[in-house]
């Protein structure tokens, strides 16, 4: 049961990376959309794409947290006490991003939209970096079990963390560009589609190079993780590379909907590769913490599984409706704007 819940938690991490990661990426593209006049259509496309869904996408993160502290309390306590600095920064980034996005839509004057837009875009860049950095801290075994036993600074300021932070930002931008290409085409803006296709290609190549360079860094900085990635998790790592290459080919071939699938697969396999490489250790550093050691008692696991089961039954149709409603209809400005 503990492994099932762990898999569910990891699936939520994956969905968060694929959906909210792309929302962060879209915010970063907002930052790079150019001056107010020429950038207006790009910004409108971005806002239209993420407006109805970003809050729902964001909830996956909360979901990961509550599952972790319910089913694996010592893991949650160890990670959040040692890595409290990047976590606090992520929290502040989440605040700045969400409220600035909502405020930008609510105000009408240009200078105000500029300020809120800048806050939104900047925090879209910073927040995934720190999320990636703290993932790197956990993956490289710098978070020992127990309360605040690791260094509160080097646990997230180290080669693997910097790498995974950069990778998180680039991945989000790549996914966002891929998704936006199809959105732009569907809304009848072929010029924007061409632009975002170019950006997706650029971001894809960069992300791929970063990932390959990353393997070198991991080999030097986190040998245990490297051994796992090149050992048990090798098929997933290879699949990720193949999906990444396939995405670039499909982008060149302008198969925008299919490329969504392969791009998402390329990202998801990296996350699952990390998971498989480390399993059954949740914390791989000195002492370590395995699934069995961290799992809550059977009564809690059972209650959580039942609740999650009931919740999923309610959730899936609701989510399906949300995405279908806003993917089906064309580029029509939302009413309450």
């Amino acid at each position, binding site marked *: 049961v503990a492994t099932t819940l762990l898999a569910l938690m990891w699936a939520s991490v994956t969905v968060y990376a694929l959906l909210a990661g792309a929302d962060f990426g879209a915010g970063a593209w907002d930052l790079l959309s150019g001056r107010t006049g020429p950038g207006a259509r790009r910004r409108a496309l971005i806002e239209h794409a993420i407006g109805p869904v970003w809050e729902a996408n964001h909830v996956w993160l*909360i979901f990961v947290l509550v599952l972790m502290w319910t089913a694996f309390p010592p893991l949650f306590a160890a990670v959040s006490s040692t890595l409290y600095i990047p976590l606090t920064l992520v929290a502040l980034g989440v605040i700045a991003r969400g409220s600035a996005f909502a405020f930008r839509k609510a105000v009408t004057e240009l200078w105000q939209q500029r300020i809120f837009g800048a806050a939104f875009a900047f925090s879209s860049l910073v927040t995934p970096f720190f999320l990636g950095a703290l993932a790197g801290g956990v993956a490289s075994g710098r978070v020992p079990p127990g*309360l605040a036993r690791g260094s509160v600074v080097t646990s997230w300021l180290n080669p693997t963390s910097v790498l995974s932070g950069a990778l998180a930002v680039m991945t989000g931008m790549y996914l966002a560009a891929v998704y936006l290409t199809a959105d732009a085409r569907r809304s009848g803006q072929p010029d924007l589609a061409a632009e975002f296709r170019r950006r997706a290609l650029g971001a894809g190549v960069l992300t791929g190079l970063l990932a390959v360079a990353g393997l070198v860094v991991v080999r030097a900085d986190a040998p245990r993780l490297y051994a796992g990635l090149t050992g048990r998790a090798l098929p997933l790592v290879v699949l990720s590379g193949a999906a990444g290459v396939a995405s670039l080919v499909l982008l060149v071939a302008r198969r925008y909907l299919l490329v969504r699938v392969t791009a998402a697969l390329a990202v998801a396999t990296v996350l699952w590769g990390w998971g498989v490489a480390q399993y059954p250790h949740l914390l791989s550093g000195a002492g370590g913490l395995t699934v069995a050691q961290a799992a809550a008692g059977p009564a809690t696991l059972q209650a959580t599984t039942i609740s999650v089961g009931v919740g999923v039954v309610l959730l899936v149709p609701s989510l399906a409706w949300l995405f279908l409603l806003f993917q089906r209809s064309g580029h029509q400005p939302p009413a309450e704007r």
Partner: protein
Amino acid sequence: MRQVAGAVLTASRVAASQVTGGGTADPVAARSQMGFSLGWHIILACLGVGMPALVLLAEWRGWRTGDPWYQLLARRWAKALGVLFAVGAVSGTVLSFEMGVLWAGLMDNYGSVIGLPFAIEGFAFFIEAIFLGIYLYGWDRLPPKVHLLSGVPIVVAGIASAFFVVTANAWMNSPTGFTIVNGRLTGVDPWAAMFNRATGPEATHLILAAFMVTGFAMASVYAVAMLRGRTDRYHRLGLLIPLTFGAIMTPIQIVVGDWATRSVATDQPLKLAAMEGLNTSGRHVPESIGGYFSGGQLHWALKIPDGLSLLLHLSPSGYVTGLQSAPADDRPSLVTVVHLAFDTMVGLGVGLLLLGAWLALAWWRHRQPPRSVWFLRATAVSGVAAVVAMESGWIVTEVGRQPWIVYGVLRVADAVNPAPGLDWGLVAVVAVYAVLSVVTVYVLRRLARSRPVPEAPQESDVTGYKVV
């Protein structure tokens, strides 16, 4: 809003500084940060729970009667709800981070006992966010009836998530669902922990508080506008709908509040003693109003003979436990704060009850709201009063539980994250929230003022009228 949060900050900082405990932990900074960010979030959370019902009510009336003013109100309120929900969602996320960043010791030991309601709340919040996206962005894409129905899950999920989160707080006040054998946690029953003895009264009390905060806060916006001379039908409706809603909730809340107080008297006698500033246990205990507590005595309070005994036990000789019944280390240290916060909450609640009664009386006799300018003035301040009452109640339950984070089980000082430098987090959070408060109020004011309401709208004008 900020003043309240500031007061909370001061209160919790003082509270924390008086918590005794060893270790390298920094409970002062942690308690201040939690008090500040939770005190801030709770206002938005209340509006997020209460507002959807009013938006739907206005939309439903507009749909049934074809009255364009209702339709306009529904769209305006939905717009404000969108902003408030976004800010509430992100400030709530911060709290879930803080559960670990600040209270790693609590979650490490008791996460398996009390995590479940948060997991369920996660789903409720998820449903809320999904349907809010559908509701706000689907206004002109869905048929009116479907659109109206798509709002129902927001109301239900909002109330449900408030319920589940409060069960966790109720558990901290009335911990059950586990046993500790030789320092090890065994026999964990998360369902029993969730439905503990404090859950019923506390959750009902908070959900009604959310309704009251929403009703009076929204009414006060229109009262201010009417005091400035804008007395058209749009503003009258905007005042009457939420005010009626709040006024109906108030008498129910007072009955529930009595229930909650009795529950505290049974399960947390020391918190009740702090609420009443009662030092010595005994019979024939007077009800004390106001004053300050110092040197084991309540000074300058107005005392009603046998009042407390009568209120709690319906008998003048009812026995009430005082602070002295516990060792000094186990007593709440800030008795004056708890006592005055309790009196503030009750006093404001009675004031709001009178405001509602005034409205009811005028309606009963003249079929219209009171014409007195004092009625508008009272309504204009009722929003702030409801928020202050709610925050006071929250101070009572949190500061009154000191020095415990889990009553009788775990002390605050043993629950805090021992990492160095937590006070910098406090500084950063206070700075960001200060900016956020200013900007939120500014944006909401712009939403309320932008685009003057058309003089005499025809139906077509209003349906073509985009809100901002």
